[in-house]
Structure formats: structure tokens, C-alpha cells
């Protein structure tokens, strides 16, 4: 299968990689893992270039692929994951206080179901409508609506009406690390 033009593909990567990384970060909650997921999605796009070489399809394909690789990563069995053996373990510090609203949002998203999380990210971060979200996730619009409602309720129950201005700022507080 013919690959994309190198210059054309370099421009595409530069233009979309950061946006994709933010989306991936909201879903997985870890910047480094988000970068890996974006790279994986871009590789998949490169391999499937002959099928999705129309401009209109690129964003939809990348979004769908990114969500899928995020979900696949979540589904990966514990025996296939990398487990650090040296201290300290790379786990989130539950006592950490969010330093900005994005951390607050991510901490809330990490505590709701993955399906609801993906729906909320696509609806409110990517600004997709119900139909577009259903196409990306490969489910019905009814499922998107119900997952949205449940996800919003769950997220609001976790985050509440807090903002970062409500939380004490501290120099030694650290952002969350690690993926759920």
C-alpha cells in the first residue's frame, strides 16, 4: 500500500499531534502515555493511508483510532503491562491537590467509567454532536445520550462545584501522575 508523501505527513503530524495529545491525556490521565497513544494512532494512520487519504476523513479516523487505542490500552491484561520494580512505585498521589482546572477535570474523569469518560471527552472537549460521537465510538446515538447523562451525573458528583480557586495553592503539591 502506498504511504503518504513524507512532507505532507510531517505537516499533518505537526498540526494535529498536540490536539490529539490533550484528548488522550483527558482519557488516560498521563501525559507520557498520551504521547505514546498519539504516536500509535499516527502509525496506524500511516499504515492505512491508502484507505483514509481524503482530508475530510483524516480527523474522524484519527479521533476514532485514538479512542480505540486508549480503550485497548485500558483493556490490556495486567500480565502485558510494564510493572516497575524499583521504588518509588509510579502511582497517583491521592493526596495531591489539582493545580489547575485541567487537573481537576482529569482527576474527576479518572473516577468514572471508561465508556462515560470517552463520551464526555468527545462531546465536551472535542465538541462533537451526538451523531458524530456515536460514529467515533461505534455505538448508537441512544447509547451516547445515556452514557452522557450518566457520565455527567457521576462527574459532577465527584468534582462538584469546585474550581482550582477553591483549593489551597501549595508549592509542594504535585500534579497527578500515572494512568488509572
Amino acid at each position, binding site marked *: *500500500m502506498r*504511504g503518504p508523501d*513524507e512532507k505532507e*505527513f*510531517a505537516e499533518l*503530524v*505537526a498540526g494535529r*499531534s*498536540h490536539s490529539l*495529545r*490533550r484528548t488522550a*491525556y*483527558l482519557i488516560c490521565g498521563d*501525559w507520557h502515555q498520551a*504521547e505514546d497513544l*498519539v*504516536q500509535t494512532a*499516527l*502509525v496506524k494512520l*500511516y*499504515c492505512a493511508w491508502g484507505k483514509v487519504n481524503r482530508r475530510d476523513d483524516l480527523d474522524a479516523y484519527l479521533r476514532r483510532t485514538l479512542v480505540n487505542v486508549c480503550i485497548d490500552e485500558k483493556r490490556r491484561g495486567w500480565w502485558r503491562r510494564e510493572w516497575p520494580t524499583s521504588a518509588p512505585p509510579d502511582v497517583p498521589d491521592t493526596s495531591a491537590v489539582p493545580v*489547575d*482546572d*485541567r*487537573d*481537576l*477535570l482529569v482527576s474527576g474523569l479518572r473516577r468514572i467509567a471508561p465508556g462515560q469518560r470517552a463520551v*464526555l471527552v468527545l462531546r*465536551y*472537549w472535542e465538541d462533537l454532536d451526538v451523531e458524530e460521537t456515536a460514529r467515533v465510538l461505534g455505538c448508537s446515538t441512544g447509547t451516547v445520550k445515556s452514557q452522557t*447523562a450518566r457520565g*455527567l*451525573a457521576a*462527574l*459532577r458528583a465527584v*468534582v462538584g*462545584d469546585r*474550581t482550582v480557586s477553591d483549593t489551597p495553592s501549595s508549592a509542594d503539591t504535585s500534579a497527578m501522575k500515572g494512568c488509572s
Partner: protein
Amino acid sequence: MKTDHEWARELFERSRQGEEPAWVADHAAVVHTGRRRNRVRAVAASASVLVTAAAVAVVAIGVGAGVGRKPPVPHPGQSVTPGPTKSAEATGPSAVLDYAGFGTFGTVNSGGKNFTLGISSTTARDTMRLLTELDPALSHIAKWTPPLPTDVRLVPDGDAMARNLSSLGATIWWTDSGIPAVTARASGTEVPTGTLILSFADAVNGSQMGTGSCAPHGASADYLLHPTLTPERHWTDTVQWSPCTKATLPDGSTLLSQTKSDGSLDVADVTRKFPGGRGQIELAWANFPFPTPDLGPDPKRVVSPNPVTVDMLVAAMSDSSLASPLASGR
């Protein structure tokens, strides 16, 4: 009070303002990885095509060479129309190995111990012709299920294995219900079972079996209705054969037939000797399994009334389309 939707909109909008770590996507690494994956896929696809082609070739060669129980190409004029009935399915030469247990044979050139028994198309066709003449629906002749372990295969006429045969024998089992032969002959079974012995012999073996004599020298000599041990410690039968009946067929073949009976036990033997010393076919029938000489026939396993008479054997062996045995391979 904000709705959930309004609340979420505000939260996500505020989140767009946060700081984030610096990062530059490595497009060269993406391209390198993508190319490598495409190459791997191409190689895998090529390998898959090669493996598939090899498998198809192996199957094609196997079918073409008549390996195993695959049927050879049908003869011109032979019906190959598939049908739902057992008889229609079985009359093809390929079915012969299901019904006839080929096991005894002699060879012209005995070189090589690992001899594979090759049944020529003509022999297979004639065998099925005889069996379907006796049991048109093949509802009584038992299948060998599972197949016999002997290395027997169907081969085209003229095949080296078929040409090397000087004699060939097959055992066929007959039951009321046509249950599998392996079940019928299982130790301890009480299934009434008849036995057909079909023998082909070339010119040399045929002449040694006594041209012009009705005395059976083939398998039918094994049917001892009332075994007796002679002073020379040979088993013999006190029941005598009937007088020999001779007939000449239109093609010049000689048909020799005789029978013997003892109560419900019946044995019949018909031999067709082809003219010009072109060999013979012998078909023998007993309405019981092979007895062991010291015990004699098991009365529980006698098929009664006798379903196969000497007249039926004569009619089957008189078929003008039967070829001289094994000659087609020479």
C-alpha cells in the same frame, strides 16, 4: 442552578487554559514504524499466499495421484451423477475401499517389502459392480468403519503398483442391517454375519488354481461346515461339495459353480475363468463368519434365511462387462 450540560461546558472550557509539558511528535519515528509494519504485513501476506498455494498444490497432487482413498478419474461412460441414495453414491469405484477389505495379494515382482496395495480403476469398478448386483441398495454389505489400516489406494489402470499384482483378495461382510464391518467382526459379537470372499488372479495364478476343475482352491476351501482333524493333523470338512456346474459365457469365459450345505449353513463358490488364460475371478459366499476349525461355525451368527444363493452369484459373475482380472494393468 446550572444543568449538568452547562456545568460540564464550563468545566471543559476552563480546562483548555492549563499548562502542559513540552512535546514534539517524532514524525520520523512514526514514518519509520509505519513502513516497518507495512513491510511485515506484505511479507506475511506473501507467506500466506505461498502457504495457501503449497497447500492447494499438495491437495491437487494427492488427488491427481489417487493418494489414499481419493477416487481416480471416472471412466468414459461411467455414471458420476451424484445422488442421495446410498447405492448411487456407492457404485462409484471410489466407494470400493469402504466396502471391500482388500488384504491378500500376490505380486509379480516381489522386490520391496513396503508394498502399497494399488487397486486399479478397472478392478475397483468390477468389484463394485459385483457387490451392487448382489445388494443393489448396499443396505446389507457392511462398511469398514473406520477404514482398514492397510495401505490401500486406488490407482489408474496401468499404474506400476496395479501392474505388479498377480493376485488380489478382498473380504466383504454382510449383515441384515448393514452395520459397520468392524462391529460385525468384533470379538464377542453375536451379530449374524455373512462373508463374501472376492479373489482376482492373473493368468499364471489362475492356471495354477486348476483350469477345468471345479475343486475350489481359493478362499472357499476355508469354509469348513463340519471340521474334522485328519490323522495327518489337517482340518478337513466332512460335508462334501456339490457336483461342479459348468457354463460357457458368450465371451468364451467358463463359469464354474458349486455349493455345500449343512443345516442352516450354506456355502457357494463361483469362479469365472476368462478365455485365453487371461486369469479368473472367484466369488465365494458363506452365510456365517469364518469359523475356527476346532469350533466350526457359530450357529448364533448364521444369517438365516440365506440371503445370497449360488444363482445370485452366477448371475453377478456372468456380467459381460466384467474385465479379465488384473489384465488391465499390464
